[in-house]
């Protein structure tokens, strides 16, 4: 066990425990807040692994934007404050979910642990530094990177269109009486 191993183990325990709490807590808002703790400590795990750029982007995008979006969605859907048993599926489905989750963990661990066992990296002389990552993004990966900006634009327009479509339909529903009376029975 080296120092980085110990630090990573500490950060990883925080990540796993808060992730577990975020999927098991009965408080709706607490789930989002535990997700925030989990994603933030995962950013710390990236820092320990020597990828400071990925860690900072994780903080900016996940902790700064996605968790805030989730909290906004919870507020807009009038999430109940306080413990609420109605947010969970029935107990037998939760047991099945636990079995499946445990099976996923066991499968991935049995596949990945032999692959990475015994591999130790000296991160004090890292193989991929931030300048190298930047050069790779704007060199080799520049076209996927540009495509991603188009994807973000499409997602933005798509989210807007989905909410607008229903808004217009609701407006049609509210004042259809004169039109329906004029055209008569539509069958």
């Amino acid at each position, binding site marked *: 066990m080296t120092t980085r191993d110990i630090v990573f183990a500490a950060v990883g325990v925080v990540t796993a425990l808060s992730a577990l709490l975020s999927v098991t807590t009965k408080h709706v808002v607490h789930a989002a807040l535990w997700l925030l703790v989990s994603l933030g400590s995962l950013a710390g*795990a990236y820092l320990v692994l020597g990828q400071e750029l990925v860690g900072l982007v994780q903080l900016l995008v996940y902790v700064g934007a996605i968790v805030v979006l989730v909290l906004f969605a919870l507020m807009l*859907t009038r999430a109940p404050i306080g413990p609420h048993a109605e947010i969970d599926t029935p107990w037998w489905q939760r047991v099945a979910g636990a079995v499946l989750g445990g099976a996923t963990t066991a499968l991935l661990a049995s596949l990945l642990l032999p692959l990475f066992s015994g591999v130790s990296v000296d991160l004090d002389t890292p193989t*991929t530094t931030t300048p190298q990552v930047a050069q790779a993004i704007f060199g080799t990966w520049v076209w996927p990177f540009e495509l991603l900006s188009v994807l973000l634009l499409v997602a933005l327009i798509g989210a807007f269109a989905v909410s607008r479509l229903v808004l217009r339909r609701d407006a049609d529903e509210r004042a259809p009486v004169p039109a329906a009376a004029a055209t008569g029975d539509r069958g």
Partner: protein
Amino acid sequence: MIHLSLPAALAALLAGIGVYGVLARRNAVLVLIGVELVLNAANLLLVTAGSRPGTQLSAGPVLTLFVITIAAAEITVALAIILVMFRKAGHIDLTAVPDLTDDPADEGVS
């Protein structure tokens, strides 16, 4: 020095917790939280694999950044759909019996 089996174990654990979160929740936003955990397990695995010696093109960190961007796009559209569902149905319970009655407003659109 760091042993890469620790991050690999954490990625496996996070993926399992995320799968449980997807299956054990009825609230649609909380199902999304489970999906986010699975995505983060994939990210951690990418970073771990990218820090192995001899990887080319900085593929690990670059693909992690790409996955983070795609996750942001995904959650934007997903939350828009959830808000529309809340406005139409009045709840975001994914196990509720769907309302299949004929909606006269649908005929005018299509």
